[in-house]
């Protein structure tokens, strides 16, 4: 692939620092699919677990690919793709206990999958049918948060609540490299630190905040920021699902045991555009993308499973078939998804245990009558 526009060449930033050498990040599975042991992160997974993770990775990528296509066909208003970040999301999410609470951004489709959120709930948000609308406590997965970094404070407060309840639970807050510049994220670090809250800050450093490269956010590696706030930071190969699992598992356990917060920097790459409205060719080099393709989070697991004989060819065929099926289901469900009724605009502004405030009620009644006036005109016209 070549760089398609001249502007990309001049505007592009140097390729990000690549911490490939041993010791620069935690890695348990190389891009070639070779297992590496790490003394601090023993892998507590059997073959079935790894196969299940492979299935997760493939299926969430398929849902994502389907969603991008649906946006291109006008069925979704926009889509924020997780392409390239599957391992960071599946590895960390599968490390959680059922009672642990998740606070996502708007790109955590893989984490949502692991928490049992129907992909259609995500698509309906991007279609404009709802703002989310699942029950966060039912899934232990908070609503998508679109304002960058706001959810890290909610996560910290939730963790402070767990402390007060004396519960054996912890919280994980997801955010990106750009979010680390936000005041709210830094305030969350302060609160979590001084109150020793049971929380893991999981930063997916995908190298790009829309068009801004990491060096526009930080002069130091992100995981090192934690030290200034008084808690440990660790960098993990964000394209290595096994390492993301092991590192998250350990940090969540520490949080539950009263050892306070950890910052995990999952070093990964946003393979696609920021969202479907974005054009990355304006600001980054094609060669960078090619380099990251060699670090694909799914291929290495497949290579590992094949090489070690932990999965038969049928296993991969079955998952590909399942992916195809899910793709078809998502496509069909999205295309047939109805718009909400217009008067739903007025629902859930205030608690329904009280009567709707009279000013709001009057607006609702007025608008209902206005809509009815068209229907009666149509009726009159059709009866003529």
């Amino acid at each position, binding site marked *: 692939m070549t760089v398609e526009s001249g502007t990309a060449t001049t505007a592009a930033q140097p390729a990000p620092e690549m911490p490939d050498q041993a010791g620069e990040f935690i890695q348990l599975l190389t891009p070639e699919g070779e297992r590496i042991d790490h003394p601090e992160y023993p892998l507590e997974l059997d073959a079935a677990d790894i196969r299940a993770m492979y299935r997760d990775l493939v299926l969430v990528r398929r849902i994502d690919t389907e969603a991008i296509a649906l946006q291109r066909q006008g069925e979704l208003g926009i889509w924020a793709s997780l392409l390239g970040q599957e391992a960071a999301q599946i590895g960390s999410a599968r490390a959680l206990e059922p009672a642990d609470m998740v606070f996502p951004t708007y790109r955590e489709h893989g984490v949502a999958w692991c928490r049992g959120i129907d992909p259609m709930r995500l698509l309906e948000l991007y279609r404009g049918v*709802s*703002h*989310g*609308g*699942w*029950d*966060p*406590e039912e899934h232990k997965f*908070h*609503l998508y*948060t679109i*304002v960058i970094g*706001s959810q*890290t*404070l*909610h*996560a*910290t*407060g*939730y*963790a*402070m*609540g*767990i*402390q*007060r*309840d004396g519960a054996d639970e912890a919280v994980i807050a997801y955010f990106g490299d750009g979010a680390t510049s936000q*005041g*709210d994220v830094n*305030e*969350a670090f*302060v*609160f979590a630190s*001084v109150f020793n809250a049971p929380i893991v800050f999981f930063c997916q450093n995908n190298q790009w905040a829309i068009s801004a490269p990491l060096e526009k956010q930080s002069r130091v590696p992100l995981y090192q920021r934690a030290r200034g706030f008084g808690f440990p930071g660790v960098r993990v190969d964000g394209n290595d699902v096994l390492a993301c699992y092991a590192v998250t598992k350990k940090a969540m356990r520490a949080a539950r045991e009263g050892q306070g917060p950890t910052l995990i920097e999952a070093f990964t790459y946003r393979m696609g555009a920021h969202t479907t409205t974005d054009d990355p060719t304006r600001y980054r080099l094609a060669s960078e993308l090619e380099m990251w393709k060699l670090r694909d989070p799914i291929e290495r697991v497949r290579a590992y499973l094949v090489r070690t004989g932990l999965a038969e060819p049928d296993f991969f065929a079955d998952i590909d078939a399942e992916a195809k099926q899910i793709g078809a289901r998502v496509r069909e469900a999205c295309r047939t998804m109805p718009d909400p009724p217009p008067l739903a605009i007025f*629902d*859930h*502004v*205030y*608690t*329904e*245990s*009280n009567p709707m*405030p*009279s*000013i*709001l009620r009057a607006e609702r009644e007025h608008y209902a009558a206005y809509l009815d006036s068209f229907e009666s005109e149509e009726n009159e016209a059709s009866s003529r």
Partner: protein
Amino acid sequence: MTTLTLSKALNAGLRKALENDPKVLIMGEDVGKLGGVFRVTDGLQKDFGEARVIDTPLAESGIVGTAIGLALRGYRPVCEIQFDGFVYPAADQIISQLAKMRYRSRGHVSLPIVIRIPFGGGIGAVEHHSESPEVIFAHTAGLRVVACADAADAFAMIQQSISSDDPVIFFEPKRRYWDKGEVDTVAGVRRALPFDQAKTVLDGTDVTLLTYGPTVRTGLEAALAARQDGRGIEVLDLRSLSPLDMDTICASVRKTGRCVVAHEAPVYAGLGAEIAARVTEQCFYHLEAPVLRVGGFATPYPPSRLEDHYLPDLDRILDAVDRTFGY
């Protein structure tokens, strides 16, 4: 009945709430050992502990953001913002998160959070300590915005706000913190007027004066002065700024035929503008004169040596009343 200052009445109300519900928390800057810069939370940390009366780091967005997390966990946090002008760093959490979470979640999530804000001028303070930002929050759907004006309401309304399943922005008239009033601390809040209703604090027949917070007392003083001139001003304390209690407002205006709105906040695009539009629409055939507004100028809050000119006082309110009789 007990005689209490408005500040002590708030303290008594907070104490009741902490006693009645173990999920109620207080959090903010200096609310613990110090008891808050206005001593509204005086003694509460000593009696309820540091886990329930939380001295937070100095970060307003952090206070409101973590309060949201605590509420998601089932707690009922009462946040103190130290001064009106310090609420803006928390505006994103209040406007984008707190106000919209029920809507965004299609009713799955309740955030029963109260944000207490001492507001208004008149204490000779430096910049950013005398503002009236209530209309920013009244303009934000999903929030309830209330202001207390006297000790009895302070005691009842803070408890009603804490009981509310909707988030409440609770404005306290800081220059009235030391005003005393009779408070029935025994009867509890069940017999108190619902906090979303306006109340008539003085009957009158000639003109309706709508006001809230610190200017309620100013309005009462104006009404007593006008009475000596034989003019009956009916004074309404709005109490709830969002939603507005238009039923009580319109009943009074239909009776008097004239309406003046007074607040410290700038008149331009202030709450008075909304009230004037609604009163004009709903009471058009009863009005003898246009609705007039008295309040702060379309300027930033001035240095305190000039604040007596900026704040609507008795004479400026009476001037507006006089003008409604000129039509």
